[in-house]
C-alpha cells in the first residue's frame, strides 16, 4: 500500500469513479458505433466491465492498512468518548502535562550538559591533568609552569599537551574612542586550540612563534566580544587593541559555539608571551590548567602514572622546596567541566521522574474511578460479544490520546522552562550547550507512550479480571462496589504518598542546608557594604610608589564622600574566593624539617579595612598607616592562624618569614573571615596594601543608608582620579553571598516546587479515592446510621479508611528516604542526611495534608440522612 494514496483515499476513490465512468462511456460509444441501440450498448459495456463497485472496493483495500485503519478508528472513538467527559480529560491532561513537561525540561538539560560530548574533536581523548601533594591527596592542584615544561619534554602520552589560565582581567581599549572596559581573558599555550581541535572562525590561531616572550603581542577574540564590541566587522583582523594600555594585534576570532572554559572568557593571548618567564618556570606555584589529548592506545591511568613519575623526580630533586607536588592526577575533560553540577542535575531529574510517576499513578487512579462509572456500558458490550482485547484496546487508545495531547503541550512548556533555566543560570558550565534536539523529542515521545501504557494498563487491570455476569449483577447500586477496584486505588495512593515523602524529605534537607549556608557567618559586616574591583594598568603605574599614591589618594576621596561611613581596600573580598596563599615560617621557631611546609591565605589590605568591614581586632594593633612601601613590614594574622600556629602562645611581636622570605612582625590578631560562604575559615594573614606590590584590589565601602546609591558617585571618583581606569564587579556583600549560594538556593527551591506539586497531587488523589469510596458505601452507611451508629463512629470509620493508605505510604516513603538521601549528601552543608527535624516535619506535614484531604468526604458521609439514602435505591 502507498502512504500517499492512503492519506488521500477519498480523492483517489473519486478519481477512480471518474476513470471508470470514462471507460464505460468509451465502451458504450464503441458499441453504438458497432450498431447497437444505446440502451443495449450501455448494458453490454457494464457487462464487459464487471462490477465497478468491486473494483472500487478492491482498490480501497489495496490502499489501506487494516491495522492503521482500525487504530485510527479507535483513536477517533477515544477522542469522542473523552470529549464527552471534558472535566476528566482536562484534569488528566493537566496532570500529565506537568509530569511530562518537567521531565522533558530536565532531560534537555541533563542531556545537553552531562551526556552530550564536548563539541571538540574526539572529545573522549581529552583529559585534564592536576598536580597532587601526595598520592592519596584529595585536593587537586593547578599546574606549575615548570612542571608543565618538564612534562612536555619528558612525557610521551599525549599527542598534544596545552597549558592555559583563565579568569584574569584586562582593561580593553582601542583607538576608536569607545569607553575602556574590563574584559575577562584567558592565556594559553599556542597549541590549545589544536589540542581541542578547534580552528578560529576568522583569521588564524596562535603559532609557536607568537607564544614567546620576544614575540609581538597577539590576541584572539571570542565571537561574543567580536560581535558586541567590534560589531562583527571582519576587518578587525590585524587591528591593534590596547589591553591594560599595551598594544596587541588581533589575529583571529573564535567560532560562535566556542565557550571554553566558560562564557566569561572573552579574549585569548599566548601564555608564554603574556606571563613573565620566571613565573612560567616556577615549580611551586600551581596556577595553570593543563589539557592533553591522549595518544591512541594510551590509557588515562598510564598517562597519569607517567606524569606522576616526572613530578616525583622534580620533587626529589628539590627536597628543600616543600611546595612542589608529588604526583599527578587526571580526569576526562567533560567530567572535569560538569563534575560540580552532575549530582544536583541528576537529583532534580530524579525528582521530576518521581513527579511523573505520581502523575501517572494519579491518572490511573482517576481512570479506575471513571471505569467504575462505565462499568455497565463495558459489561453490556462484553455481553454482546465485545472481546476483552477489543475493550482493552479502546482503553489504551483513550490513554494514548490523552498522553499525546499532554505531550504536545508539555513540549512547549518544557521549551519555556528550559529558556528560563538558561537565562537564570548563566553561571553554570556548558549552559550554552543546552538545546532541544531530536533526542529530546524522542524522549518526549517515549514518555508519552510510557504514560499511555502505564496509565492505561494499570487502570484496566480490573476490566480483565471480572466475570461479565458479576459486573452486570453488581452494577446495581445496592451492592457495595467491587472491592478490588478500591483496593487497587489505595495501593496506587500509598505509592504516590511514598514518592511524595521522598521528594519532601529531599527538598527539606536541601532547604535546611541552604538556610544553614545563608546563616553561616562570613566574619564581617554584610549589610550595606558595597564592593568593587579595579586594577591599575602596569604601564601607567610602573612602580610601587605610584600605586601606593593612587590607593592613598583614592581612599581619602572615597572616605570624604557624603554617605560613606567607612571604606577600605582588600585584595580579595570575603566570600569572593580563595585569592591566593603563601608559605611562611615563624622566625622564632626552629626551622621546619626539610620537605614540610605551612601556608596561609594572604590578603593585602589597608589599615582601615578591618574597621570598615567590622572585623574585630582581638589583640595587638593593626599595621600603621605610616608604614608604607619598604617600611610595610607588619603583618596581622587571623584568629585561626594564631590558634593553629601559636597554640596558647602570644603571637604579637613574633616574626613571619614570607612573601619572598621577607620578615614581617606580627602586630595584631583579628577575627576570622571566610573566603567562600560554604567553607570554614582558614588561617589568613594580612599585609599592608601600601607596600604597593600589587595594582589590583577590591574596594569596600560601608554606609548607614542604601549603599547602592553610592556606586555611581564612587565610580565617578575613580574616573576623576584616572579616566582610563575601569571599575568592575560592583556588588553588595549580600549579592556576593547570594551568588555564592545561588546553586544551593536554586536546587532547594526547584526541589521544593516539585515536592509541593506532588503533595498536591497526592492530596487530590486521596480526596478523590475517599470521596468515591464513601459515595459507593452510601447505602451501607445509611443502614449503619439507621441501626444506631453514631455520627462520630462513621466519621472515624471513613477517616481511618482514607488515612490508612496515607500512613502506609508515609512509612514506605520514610524507609525509602533513608536510602535515597545518601545521594544528596554531597549537596548538603552542615546538614545530616537523616536530619530528624526534616523527617519529623515531613511526617507532620504529610499527615496534616492527608487529614485535610480526608476530612471533607468523611464529614459528608457522617452527615448522611439514612432515610434518604435508603429510599434513593
Amino acid at each position, binding site marked *: 500500500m502507498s502512504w500517499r*494514496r492512503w492519506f488521500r483515499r477519498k480523492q483517489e476513490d473519486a478519481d477512480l469513479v*471518474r*476513470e471508470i465512468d*470514462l471507460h464505460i*462511456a*468509451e*465502451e458504450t460509444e464503441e458499441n453504438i458505433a458497432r450498431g447497437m441501440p444505446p440502451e443495449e450498448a450501455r448494458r453490454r459495456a457494464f457487462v*464487459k466491465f464487471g462490477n465497478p463497485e468491486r473494483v472500487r472496493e478492491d*482498490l480501497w483495500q*489495496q490502499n489501506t492498512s487494516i491495522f492503521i485503519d482500525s487504530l485510527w478508528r479507535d483513536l477517533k472513538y477515544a477522542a469522542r468518548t473523552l470529549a464527552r467527559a471534558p472535566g476528566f480529560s482536562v484534569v488528566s491532561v493537566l496532570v500529565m502535562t506537568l509530569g511530562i513537561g518537567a521531565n522533558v525540561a530536565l532531560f534537555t538539560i541533563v542531556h545537553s550538559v552531562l551526556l552530550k560530548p564536548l563539541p571538540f574533536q574526539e572529545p573522549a581523548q581529552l583529559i585534564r591533568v592536576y598536580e597532587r601533594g601526595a598520592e592519596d591527596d584529595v585536593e587537586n592542584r593547578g599546574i606549575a609552569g615548570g612542571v608543565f615544561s618538564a612534562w612536555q619534554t619528558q612525557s610521551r602520552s599525549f599527542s598534544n599537551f596545552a597549558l592555559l589560565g583563565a579568569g584574569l582581567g584586562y582593561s580593553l581599549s582601542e583607538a576608536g574612542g569607545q569607553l575602556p572596559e574590563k574584559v575577562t581573558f584567558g592565556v594559553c599555550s599556542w597549541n590549545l586550540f589544536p589540542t581541542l581541535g578547534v580552528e578560529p572562525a576568522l583569521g588564524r590561531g596562535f603559532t609557536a612563534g607568537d607564544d614567546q616572550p620576544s614575540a609581538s603581542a597577539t590576541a584572539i577574540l571570542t565571537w561574543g566580544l567580536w560581535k558586541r564590541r567590534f560589531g562583527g566587522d571582519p576587518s578587525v583582523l590585524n587591528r591593534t587593541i590596547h589591553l591594560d594600555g599595551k598594544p596587541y594585534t588581533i589575529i583571529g576570532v573564535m567560532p560562535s559555539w566556542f565557550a571554553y572554559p566558560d562564557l566569561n572568557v572573552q579574549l585569548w593571548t599566548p601564555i608564554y608571551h603574556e606571563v613573565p618567564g620566571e613565573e612560567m618556570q616556577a615549580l611551586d606555584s600551581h596556577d595553570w590548567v593543563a589539557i592533553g589529548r591522549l595518544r591512541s592506545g594510551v590509557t588515562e591511568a598510564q598517562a597519569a602514572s607517567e606524569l606522576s613519575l616526572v613530578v616525583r623526580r622534580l620533587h626529589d630533586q628539590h627536597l628543600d622546596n616543600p611546595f612542589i607536588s608529588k604526583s599527578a592526577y587526571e580526569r576526562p575533560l567533560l567530567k572535569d567541566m560538569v563534575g560540580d553540577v552532575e549530582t544536583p542535575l541528576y537529583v532534580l531529574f530524579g525528582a521530576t521522574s518521581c513527579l511523573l510517576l505520581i502523575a501517572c499513578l494519579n491518572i490511573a487512579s482517576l481512570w479506575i474511578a471513571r471505569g467504575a462509572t462505565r462499568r455497565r456500558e463495558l459489561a453490556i458490550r462484553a455481553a454482546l460479544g465485545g472481546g476483552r482485547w477489543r475493550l482493552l484496546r479502546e482503553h489504551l487508545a483513550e490513554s494514548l490520546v490523552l498522553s499525546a495531547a499532554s505531550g504536545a503541550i508539555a513540549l512547549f512548556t518544557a521549551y519555556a522552562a528550559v529558556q528560563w533555566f538558561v537565562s537564570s543560570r548563566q553561571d553554570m558550565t556548558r549552559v550554552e550547550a543546552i538545546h532541544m534536539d531530536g533526542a529530546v523529542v524522542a524522549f518526549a515521545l517515549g514518555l508519552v507512550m510510557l504514560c499511555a501504557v502505564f496509565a492505561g494498563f494499570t487502570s484496566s487491570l480490573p476490566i480483565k479480571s471480572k466475570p461479565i455476569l458479576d459486573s452486570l449483577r453488581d452494577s446495581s447500586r445496592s451492592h457495595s462496589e467491587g472491592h478490588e477496584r478500591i483496593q487497587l486505588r489505595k495501593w496506587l495512593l500509598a505509592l504516590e504518598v511514598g514518592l511524595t515523602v521522598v521528594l519532601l524529605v529531599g527538598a527539606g534537607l536541601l532547604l535546611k542546608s541552604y538556610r544553614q549556608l545563608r546563616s553561616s557567618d562570613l566574619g564581617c559586616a554584610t549589610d550595606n557594604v558595597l564592593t568593587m574591583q579595579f586594577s591599575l594598568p602596569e604601564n601607567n603605574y610602573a612602580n610601587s610608589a605610584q600605586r601606593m599614591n593612587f590607593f592613598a589618594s583614592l581612599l581619602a576621596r572615597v572616605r570624604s564622600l557624603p554617605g560613606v561611613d567607612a571604606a577600605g581596600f582588600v585584595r580579595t573580598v570575603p566570600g569572593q574566593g580563595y585569592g591566593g596563599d603563601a608559605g611562611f615560617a615563624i622566625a622564632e621557631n626552629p626551622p621546619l624539617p626539610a620537605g614540610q611546609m605551612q601556608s596561609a591565605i594572604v590578603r593585602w589590605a589597608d589599615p582601615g579595612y578591618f574597621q570598615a568591614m567590622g572585623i574585630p581586632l582581638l589583640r595587638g594593633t593593626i599595621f600603621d598607616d605610616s608604614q608604607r612601601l619598604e617600611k610595610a613590614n607588619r603583618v596581622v594574622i587571623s584568629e585561626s592562624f594564631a590558634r593553629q600556629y601559636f597554640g596558647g602562645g602570644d603571637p604579637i611581636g613574633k616574626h613571619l618569614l614570607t612573601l619572598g622570605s621577607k620578615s614581617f612582625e606580627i602586630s595584631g590578631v583579628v577575627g576570622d573571615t571566610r573566603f567562600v560562604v560554604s567553607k570554614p575559615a582558614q588561617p589568613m594573614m594580612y599585609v599592608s596594601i601600601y607596600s604597593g606590590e600589587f595594582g589590583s584590589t577590591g574596594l569596600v565601602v560601608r554606609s548607614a543608608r542604601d549603599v547602592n546609591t553610592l556606586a555611581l558617585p564612587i565610580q565617578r571618583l575613580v574616573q576623576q582620579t584616572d579616566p582610563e581606569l575601569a571599575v568592575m564587579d560592583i556588588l553588595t556583600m549580600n549579592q556576593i553571598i547570594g551568588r555564592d549560594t545561588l546553586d544551593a538556593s536554586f536546587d532547594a527551591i526547584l526541589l521544593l516546587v516539585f515536592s509541593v506539586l506532588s503533595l498536591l497531587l497526592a492530596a487530590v488523589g486521596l480526596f478523590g479515592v475517599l470521596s468515591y469510596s464513601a459515595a459507593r458505601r452510601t447505602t451501607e452507611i445509611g443502614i449503619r446510621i439507621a441501626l444506631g451508629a453514631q455520627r462520630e463512629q462513621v466519621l472515624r470509620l471513613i477517616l481511618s479508611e482514607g488515612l490508612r493508605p496515607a500512613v502506609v505510604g508515609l512509612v514506605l516513603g520514610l524507609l525509602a528516604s533513608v536510602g535515597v538521601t545518601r545521594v544528596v549528601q554531597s549537596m548538603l552543608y552542615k546538614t545530616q542526611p537523616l536530619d530528624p527535624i526534616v523527617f519529623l516535619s515531613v511526617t507532620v506535614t504529610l499527615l496534616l495534608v492527608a487529614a485535610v484531604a480526608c476530612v471533607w468526604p468523611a464529614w459528608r458521609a457522617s452527615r448522611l440522612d439514612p432515610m434518604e439514602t435508603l429510599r434513593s435505591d
Partner: protein
Amino acid sequence: MGKKDQPNGEMLKGTLDMMILRTLVAGDAHGHTIAKVIERSSEDVLEVEQGSLYPALHRLEDRGWVSSYWGASENNRKAKFYRLTALGKRQLTLQTSRWRQMARAIALVMGDKALDEGGRE
C-alpha cells in the same frame, strides 16, 4: 482456441503488468485504450478483465513504473492518462527478456509441434 474458453483470470501473474507497460511504449494512454490495445494486438485472445486492470495500473504507479496525469480523451472527455517512466522502461526490458526465456523454455518442453498447433489458429 476460443475467445471465451480461456479464463483471463488465469493469465500468468505479472504478465498483465508487462503487457500494460508494453502498450504504453507506443504512447500515453488511458485505461480503456490500454484494454483495447491489449485485446486487439492479441487478436482478441486476451480479454483484460476490467476488475484487474485498474488495480494493476495503480500498483504500477505506486512502484513508479508509470506516472499519470489528467488529460482529454480522443472524444474530448476528461481522462486519466498513464505514461511509461524511465524506471518502467527498464522494468519492461527486464520482464520481456525474462518472458522470452520462459516462453522458449516452455516451447522446448512442449516441442515445436505443440507450439505450432497452439500458437496459430
